[in-house]
C-alpha cells in the first residue's frame, strides 16, 4: 500500500506510466488550465472589442485616399522636441518628399505635429449602428499614418482594423455555420444510425475531399461578374461553411454514439423519455465540449481561409479591406522589397491566432484534466 498523495511514478520509477495522477497534481493542472482559459478568453474579448470598435480606434475611414501621401512610412513618435524640451503630448514630424523621387520621404523637422486624443474626425457607425465622430486619436493638423500608408495613401492602421472586421466576422460566421451543420448531421447520424448514418457519413467524406478552392472558382463562374462586397462576403462564408462541416460532424457522431449507450441514457429511455428529451437533456450536452474546442480551432482556420481567398482576389473586392486583400499587395516584388510596413497585416493576425489556439488547448485540457503527464522512467539500465 502506498501512502495517499504520493504518485506511483514517484514511488517507483519503473512502475508503468499509466498510473492515475495524484490529487495535488490534478488540481494544479486544473488551476493552470483554468488560468490559461481565463487569460485567453479575456485577451480574445479585448482583441475582438478593438476590432468591433474599429471606427473609434481607427483615425480615418479605410477607403479615404490621400493621393499625395502614397507609401508614407510610419512616423516616429517623440516626446522631446528639437530644442530638448519635454512635451506632454507625443508628437511626430510630418514627411516631405525627398527630391523628385517617388515614395522617398524625409521628416520635416520644422513642423512638429501633436497627437490628439479623443478627437472629432470622419463619421462612422459604432457596431454598425450608432453614428459617431469621436476617434481615439488623430493629428493636430494633417493626417497621421501610425502604421504607414498604402499605394493610394490610405491609412494602413485603419485598414487593418476595418479589415479585421471582415476577416474575423467571416471566421466566426463560417465556424458557426460549420458547427451548426456539423452538429445536426453528426447527431442525426450518430443517434439514429442505420442508413441515415451511412448516407450522411459518406456525404461527409465526399465534402471532406472536395478541393474547396476549385469549388469556389466554379461557384464564382455561376454568379454575375461583378459582385458587391456584401455578396462576395456571404459567398466566402457560404463556401467555408459548406466545405468545413464534415470534420465536426464526424466528431459529434462519435460522441453521440458513445453517449447514447451510456447507462443513464438507457435508463432514461427505459423510463419512456422521448428522442427530443434525450438529445436535449443528455446527449447534446455531452458534445458541447467537443464543439467548443472545435470552434476555437475552426475560427482561426476560417480566418485564414478568408485571407487566402481575398489574397487570391476571390474575397471581398477593393476598396473594402480585409486582411487577405491587404496582404495581396505583397504579391508585387517592388512592394515586398521597398515598403516594410505593408507586412504589418500579417502581424495583426498573430495575437488572434495565439489567443484562439491557446483557448483550444485550454478547453481540451479542461475536458481531460487526468491526462497522462510525461514521467521520467529513470536511467536505463
Amino acid at each position, binding site marked *: 500500500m502506498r501512502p495517499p498523495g504520493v504518485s506511483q511514478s514517484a514511488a517507483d520509477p519503473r512502475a508503468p506510466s499509466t498510473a492515475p495522477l495524484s490529487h495535488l497534481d490534478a488540481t494544479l493542472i486544473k488551476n493552470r488550465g483554468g488560468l490559461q482559459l481565463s487569460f485567453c478568453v479575456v485577451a480574445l474579448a479585448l482583441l475582438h472589442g478593438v476590432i468591433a470598435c474599429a471606427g473609434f480606434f481607427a483615425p480615418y475611414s479605410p*477607403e479615404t*485616399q490621400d*493621393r499625395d501621401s*502614397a507609401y508614407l512610412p510610419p512616423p516616429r513618435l517623440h516626446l522631446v522636441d528639437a530644442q530638448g524640451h519635454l512635451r506632454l503630448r507625443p508628437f511626430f514630424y510630418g514627411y516631405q518628399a525627398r527630391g*523628385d*523621387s*517617388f*515614395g522617398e520621404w524625409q521628416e520635416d523637422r520644422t513642423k512638429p505635429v501633436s497627437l490628439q486624443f479623443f478627437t472629432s474626425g470622419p*463619421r462612422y457607425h459604432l457596431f454598425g449602428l450608432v453614428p459617431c465622430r469621436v476617434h481615439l486619436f488623430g493629428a493636430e493638423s494633417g493626417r497621421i499614418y501610425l502604421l504607414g500608408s498604402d*499605394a*493610394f*495613401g490610405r491609412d494602413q492602421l485603419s485598414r487593418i482594423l476595418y479589415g479585421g472586421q471582415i476577416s474575423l466576422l467571416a471566421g466566426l460566421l463560417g465556424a458557426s455555420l460549420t458547427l451548426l451543420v456539423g452538429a445536426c448531421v453528426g447527431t442525426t447520424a450518430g443517434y439514429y444510425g442505420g442508413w441515415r448514418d451511412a448516407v450522411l457519413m459518406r456525404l461527409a467524406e465526399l465534402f471532406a475531399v472536395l478541393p474547396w478552392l476549385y469549388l469556389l472558382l466554379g461557384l464564382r463562374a455561376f454568379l*454575375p*461578374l*461583378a*459582385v*458587391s462586397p456584401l455578396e462576395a462576403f456571404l459567398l466566402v462564408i457560404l463556401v467555408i461553411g459548406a466545405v468545413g462541416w464534415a470534420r465536426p460532424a464526424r466528431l459529434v457522431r462519435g460522441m453521440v454514439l458513445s453517449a447514447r449507450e451510456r447507462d443513464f441514457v438507457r435508463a432514461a429511455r427505459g423510463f419512456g423519455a422521448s428522442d427530443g428529451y434525450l438529445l436535449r437533456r443528455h446527449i447534446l450536452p455531452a458534445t458541447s465540449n467537443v464543439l467548443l474546442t472545435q470552434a476555437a480551432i475552426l475560427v482561426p482556420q476560417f480566418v485564414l481561409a478568408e485571407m487566402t481567398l481575398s489574397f487570391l*482576389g476571390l474575397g471581398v*473586392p*477593393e*476598396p473594402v479591406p480585409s486582411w487577405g486583400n491587404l496582404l495581396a499587395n505583397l*504579391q*508585387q*516584388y*517592388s*512592394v515586398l*522589397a*521597398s515598403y516594410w510596413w505593408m507586412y504589418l497585416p500579417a502581424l495583426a493576425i498573430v495575437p488572434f491566432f495565439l489567443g484562439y489556439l491557446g483557448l483550444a488547448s485550454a478547453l481540451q485540457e479542461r475536458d481531460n484534466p487526468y491526462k497522462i503527464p510525461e514521467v521520467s522512467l529513470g536511467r536505463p539500465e
Partner: protein
Amino acid sequence: MKRQSVFLLLSCLSLAILPATYQRAEARSSTVPPQTTVAEELLTVPGQTGQGGGRLVLSLRAEPKTLNPVTATDASSREVILGAMQADLVHINRATQLTEPALAKSWRVSADHLQYTLILRKGLRFSDGQPVDADDVLFSFRVYLDENVHAPQRDLLILGGKPITVRKENAWTVVFQLPQPYGAGERLFDGFAILPRHLLEKPYTEGKLAQTWTLATPAKEWAGLGPFRLKEYVPGQRLVLERNPYYWKQDAKGNRLPYLEELDFLFVPNADAQVLRFQSGETDAISRLGAENFAVLARQQRGYTMADAGPGLEYNFLFFNLNDLGEQVPPEIRRKQKWFREVKFRQAVSAAIDRDAIVRLVYQGRGAALWGPVTPGDRRWVDASLPHPQRSLERARQLLKEAGFSSSGKAEDDAALVDSEGQPVEFSILTSSSSAERTKMATLIQDDLKQLGMRVQVTPLEFRSLIDRVTQTKEYEASLFGLASFDADPNSDMNVWLSSGGTHLWNPSQAHPQTAWEAEIDRLMEEQLETSSYEQRKKVYDRVQEILAENQPMIFLASPHILAGAKNSVGHFRPAVLEPYILWNVEQLYWRSGTERAAQ
C-alpha cells in the same frame, strides 16, 4: 576584380567558341553554298565601334510559339524574330522613327505614288550561306499575300480592297505596284521579313508552311537575314541564337556586325522573376519594366544602368460598352447603355478622372497623362493643340445635370447619382488581373467617380476571358484596357479607329458606322491612308484625335514610359520607345573591355 575575372572568362569562352562557330559555318556552307563573284554591298553603320565576342542573356516573358515570321502573332515570337533573326527591305529606325535603307539599298517612288522600285544590296547571303536575290523577295510577298497562309501582316498589303502586286525587274530590282497611294509610303516594308525561297518553297507549295520553322526545327534547316541565327532550343528553358557570319552590316571600321557571339533568351514567365534574375546577374539586360520595379532597381544600382526612354506608344483607356446588343445579353447591361451612349456622361467621367494621380501613383511619375490616343512618345503625330482640361468635379457635375442625372440628395458622403428614371448609377469596370497597373488605375477611377455619386466596382479578370467578354460575348459594362501601336504612324491603328475594325473596342466590326462621328473618323482615316504628304496627313489625323477627344468613346488615361536596364558593361545600350525596345540595335550591342569601362 571579380568582374575582371568574369570578363576574362567570357573572353576565353568566346575564343573557345569562335573557332567552333567558324567550323560550323563552314560545315553548314560546305553542303550547298555556291560561290558568287558579286561583291557584297554591306551597310556601314556610322558611329562608335565596339568589340566582338561574348554572350548576352535576356529574359522573355513567354516561350515564343514559332520561329516562322509569317505566322508569328505572339509578342515573344515577334520580339525574337523581328528583333534578332530577320531583316526587312526598308527599316524604321527605332530611335529616329524614320525609315532607312536595309536589304534595299535605295528606292524610287513614281510621281503618282503608286510604284515603288527597290534596289537590293548585291552579294548578300542568308545565314546558311545561300545568296539572296529578287526571287526571294517575290517569293516572300507571294507568301504574305496568300490568303491560305493567314499571315497577320497580309492586311497591310491590301489597299482599298486590292492587293499590292510585286514584279522583278532584274536580279536586284523589285517593283511594287500599289492599287492606290499609301500615305505612310515606304514604312509599309518594315516588318516584312525576306524569306529563304530555297528552304520554304517546298513546304509552301505543299501547304505545310504553318507547320514549318517551329521551335524544334534543327538549326541547319533555318535561315534568315537578321544578325543572329538559330543555334539551340531547350524547351521550357531557353532559346540560344548565334552570330550570323553573313550579316549585311558593318561598323565604321569595316568589322562585320553583330559584335556579340551569342544571344540567349531565358523563358521567365513572371515580371517580378525577371527583375530578380536581372538583379542576381543571371540576365544582362531587361526591358518592359514596370515603374515600381524600375524604382527598386534604380535605387539599388548594383553595377547596372537603368534607362528611361520616355513615353512609349502604349495608351491606356477606359471605355464603355456601346455595342448594339442582342437579346442574349442581360437586360441590365442594355439598360445601362442608355447612360453610356450619352456623350455628356462620358465627358463627365473623363472630367472627373484625376490623370495626374494615375501618372504619379501608378507610374511613380514615369508616365504621361493622356487626353488623346497619340502619346507624347509619338513625336510626329501627337496633336499638340488638343485641350488638356484639368480635373474638374464641378464641370463633371454640370455635364451630368445637363444629361438628366441628379443626386439622390442624402448626406453629402452618401449621396448617390441617379438617372432620369431614378435608377442609381452603378457599373463595373473589367480589367486584366495580370496587370497590377491597370487594376490600380481602375481603383483610382472608382474613387474619383464615387465623388460624383457613381458606384463603381472593379473586376479583375484573367486576360483571355476579358478579351472574350469584350470582343465576343460583349457581356460587360465598362473596361480598362491598354493598346500599344507597333509603329509611330496612324496606319498602325487603322484597326482601332475604323468602325469595321476588330479592335474598335467599344463597338467592334460594325457593318456600317453606328454614329455620324464614327463615319467621319472612317472617312478621315481612309483619307490619310491615301494622302502622301506628311503635312496633309497630320492635319487629317489631328482632326481624328479631336473627334475622339470630343466624343470620348475611349477615355484616355495615361501612357507609361519605356523603362529598361542593362549591365554597365553592355555597350551601345540605347533603349527606344518602339518595339523591340532594347533589341532594335542588337547588332551593335557589345561587351565593353575593362579599360573602356574604367574610362567611362
